[in-house]
């Protein structure tokens, strides 16, 4: 059953043909496989409590981590500024990863360059690569700003970005007054949310604190504006657009810092936009004058927010607010900070979300959930689930820290629905696998990689997180605001109903409950 031109088979069909099956069987025989019974025995053993204990005693090895590295976050933040080319000082292979990672999630091209350090650069330092790299990318891609971050390679040898950029400018790689903010973003510290934080802080520092000693520091003249920071967020396209709508409804004057909602969602109309939208460089500089800054993700802005507060602004951090109460808090804070009222339109949206929750609560109430992802996302999701009467059982964040653990525990302790929940900072998806086998739940919430857990443990996966590679376009719909809460609710409900249908579809066996109305 080889390919025929009349009926070309996709790979998942083609290899089911007898000739390929035979080939695969031969390969297996050639490998002299282990006794299948023994394989089965070990497989079953990995599902036990005994194995779980050994698994949790693991120290050195991380298996299936639910996090990415700093520079990925730095690139994500950098492209949120007008005409900005992210320039990663280090090896080019890393940069190819960030680009493909972002492209696969957003289904958009992702433009980013590297200084392509090789072995000699690693021995003698990357200065030449920096000088040439800045000159080449400035001339080839005509950016308005180049935001520099680093890979591990440059960090291990200790390249001094500040000095390198200064030298590059002296050597004429880029004009002396050209904006080249920078951030050190080694992957061996923190995760992509740390990189986001560092890059954003680096850019603000550049504009506010005298452009690396080449210009006077800005003097803050407070105005009525509010700065908004989304943090590292797979739903940035939908979320930032929703936030803009809310801010405009309320009549708040605002600056969104690192607004990458356009560059990750460019229209297909015959024009390639290497850069699109973004916070303008003027806005970035003038953001220093704002009344205050709101961050939607505490652990994505751990350094940026105190930096902004030190410049005299009020700052406020949320933990990925989702659902009614969290959105209430967010809007209240916005209202207090800006002095603007909350319009009727938003009150109506609130009412609609509450209405939808009441219509469907019976199906979510008491269902058990496991959640993993970035710390703020986990916190926000857990809070929304508690509000829905669902019971989070495992909340796991590979890049969550001690403070996150404590804050999340406090959240769970405050609800009768959070009493049976454990919080796992610094754990990975292989730990989650043990948890799902030994303390099963009804549903799992996580990113695309959760599909292996879904297959292994039979726990249905609701895809909320980053990256989501195997489902398209969900990043276009918000999960913030009351309307975003509605989207999350529908996502969860869709899975619940799909599962009920799946479990009741067996003809003549279980289909007595295969109902039209749910």
């Amino acid at each position, binding site marked *: 059953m080889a390919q025929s031109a009349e009926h070309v088979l996709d790979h998942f069909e083609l290899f089911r043909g007898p000739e390929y099956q035979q080939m695969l069987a031969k390969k297996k025989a050639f490998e002299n496989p282990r006794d299948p019974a023994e394989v089965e025995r070990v497989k079953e053993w990995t599902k036990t409590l005994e194995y779980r204990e050994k698994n949790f005693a693991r120290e050195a090895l991380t298996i299936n981590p639910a996090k990415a590295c700093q520079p990925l976050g730095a690139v994500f933040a950098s492209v949120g500024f007008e005409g900005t080319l992210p320039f990663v000082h280090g090896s080019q292979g890393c940069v190819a990863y960030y680009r493909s990672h972002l492209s696969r999630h957003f289904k958009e091209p992702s433009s980013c360059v590297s200084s392509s350090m090789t072995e000699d650069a690693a021995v003698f330092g990357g200065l030449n690569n920096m000088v040439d790299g800045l000159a080449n990318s400035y001339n080839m891609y005509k950016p308005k700003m180049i935001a520099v971050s680093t890979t591990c390679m440059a960090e291990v040898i200790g390249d001094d970005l500040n000095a390198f950029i200064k030298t590059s400018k002296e050597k004429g790689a880029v004009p002396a007054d050209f904006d080249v903010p920078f951030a050190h973003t080694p992957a061996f510290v923190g995760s992509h949310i740390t990189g986001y934080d560092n890059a954003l802080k680096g850019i603000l520092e550049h504009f506010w604190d005298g452009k690396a000693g080449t210009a006077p520091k800005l003097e803050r003249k407070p105005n009525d504006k509010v700065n908004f920071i989304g943090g590292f967020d797979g739903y940035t396209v939908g979320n930032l657009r929703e936030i803009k709508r809310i801010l405009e409804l309320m009549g708040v004057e605002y600056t969104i810092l690192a607004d990458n909602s356009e560059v990750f969602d460019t229209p297909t109309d015959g024009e390639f936009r290497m850069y699109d939208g973004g916070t303008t460089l003027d806005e970035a500089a003038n953001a220093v004058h704002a009344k205050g800054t709101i961050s939607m993700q505490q652990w994505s802005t751990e350094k940026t927010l105190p930096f902004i507060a030190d410049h005299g602004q009020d700052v406020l951090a949320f933990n990925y607010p989702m659902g009614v109460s969290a959105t*209430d808090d967010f809007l209240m804070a916005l209202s207090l900070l800006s002095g603007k009222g909350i319009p009727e339109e938003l009150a109506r949206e609130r009412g609609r979300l*509450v209405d939808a929750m009441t219509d469907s609560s019976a199906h979510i109430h008491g269902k058990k959930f496991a959640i993993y992802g970035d710390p703020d996302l986990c916190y926000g999701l857990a809070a929304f689930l508690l509000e829905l*009467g669902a019971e989070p059982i495992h909340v796991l964040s590979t890049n969550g820290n001690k403070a996150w653990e404590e804050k999340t525990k406090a959240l769970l302790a405050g609800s*009768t*629905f959070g009493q049976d929940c454990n919080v796992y900072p610094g754990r990975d998806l292989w730990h989650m696998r043990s948890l799902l086998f030994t303390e099963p739940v009804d549903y799992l919430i996580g990113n695309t990689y959760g599909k292996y857990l879904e297959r292994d443990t039979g726990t249905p996966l609701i895809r909320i997180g980053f990256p989501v590679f195997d489902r398209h376009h969900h990043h276009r719909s918000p999960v913030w605001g009351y309307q975003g809460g509605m989207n999350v609710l529908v996502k969860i409900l869709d899975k619940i109903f799909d599962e009920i249908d799946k479990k009741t579809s067996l003809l003549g066996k279980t289909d007595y409950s295969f109902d039209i*109305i749910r």
Partner: protein
Amino acid sequence: MSSLRATVRNIFNEPGCAKNGSKPESERKKGCTKQLQPGGAAGGCAFDGAKIALQPFTDVAHLVHGPIACEGNSWDSRSAASSGSNLWRTAFTTDMNETDIVFGGEKRLYKAIKQIIDKYDPPAIFVYQTCVPAMIGDDIDAVCKAAAGKFGKPVIPVNSPGFVGSKNLGSKLAGEALLEHVIGTQEPDDTTAYDINLIGEYNLSGELWQIKPLFEELGIRILSCISGDGKYREVASSHRARAAMMVCSKSLINVARKMEERYEIPFFEGSFYGIQDSSDSLREIARLLVGRGAPDHLIERTESVIAREEARAWTAIEPYKARFNGKKVLLITGGVKSWSVVAALQEAGLELVGTSVKKSTKEDKDRIKQLMGQDAHMIEDMPPREMYRILKDAKADIMLSGGKSQFVALKTATPWLDINQERCHAYMGYVGMVKLVEEIDKSLSNPMWEQLRRPTPWNALARAMVKVRSQAIASISDEAIGETARRAKKICVCNTVDLGTIEDATCSHGLTSVEAVRQHTNEAGGCCSRRIENILRSPPAMFQAAE
């Protein structure tokens, strides 16, 4: 049409129906239910009632003769569980078009019947008459008779076009069709002294199955259930049963009574909603069977099953009693459920603030009085506005009703539980009662309700702010709400000091400067001074917006 009119009149004379029997001759002609008021919202039509009553026969092809409206809107809308055939869920309709209406739809109907037999060969076809063919004069009785003769297969006309009246009347007309064309047309393979019929039980969400194991344990055989999880052959041979239980008090009373008249099958009216009712029903079935020749020990065996099941259910419900203490229920439903559910809820320790009796018979009402006392709050016909008022005044913590009233409850932020046909859970029998109690508990404890009953936080905060400034503490009606909102609002980024604390300090110590507030509240950070200044200065704009 004249025969239909006669049938309808006959139904209105139903002696089994106490309510009708007590009416004067002139009123009886007007029919069972109140005449529909043009311009008002009303329930389903006679066609719908007929289809509801018969569709749970699972191996029958249900063919709706009419334009797409009738089957298009009712296809598979009830979750009556089937243990075998899926045919009942398949939508068959003649889907009449304009030409059929001009030239008549009889030929189309005949062809449709033939095609069903060709493709599916079911044991029988039920043909439902609807308004349009009835108005243009399609004679479905004649078509069915011809088709039955030609194809040698039962083709049963169900003459219940929507315009003849209410849903309830339609169910009875469906019963008439069974009596006239189906019941007694076949003989069972064998009979036992333990054969019973269940009449008016539809196995919604598999409710019947929650009871059936008890019957089987006692050796009682359900010869025919009309119509839940029923087969054509079973209903056709149902005339050989020894006793019958009338499950839904009004919809098929004519079937139970006429079967008693024709085949001497004694029946009683019972319910499996609630622990006491389930026990009573089992007892009554045993009594009737023994009266018809079953061995005496059936009664003893039944008592022991009852004792065991009751003990089990009570144990399962016990933990809820404390949780339900002081919780009030408003029950809006029809017919039999009004009293049988009352008993069930009381068993779980809930207090009933009212129950609707719109579709209940005089007997139903008497039973309610027995259960709830003479001054029971029986609601004859509750318009949504009144329902809204009762719920809004928080006279009830939860409302139990059908889907139609759901939205009234939800708009008043009152927990609600569906106990009519579109529900997802089965509440019958001892097992079902525990399920109902569990569902009520889940509804009452859902965290969303608390959220829903609170004003939007910005309104709550605005009110709390009034309180601080005017010092008119007594004028704030809902202190706790304002307090929660105030305590919830963090002022400092380090999240240690909330608005309430700062306001209280400002108010009680007469503080006027940021420094003073800091001293009193331990508010330590450097970033919050502006916010504290704002609180000290003037009410924020959102307060005005909320006015």
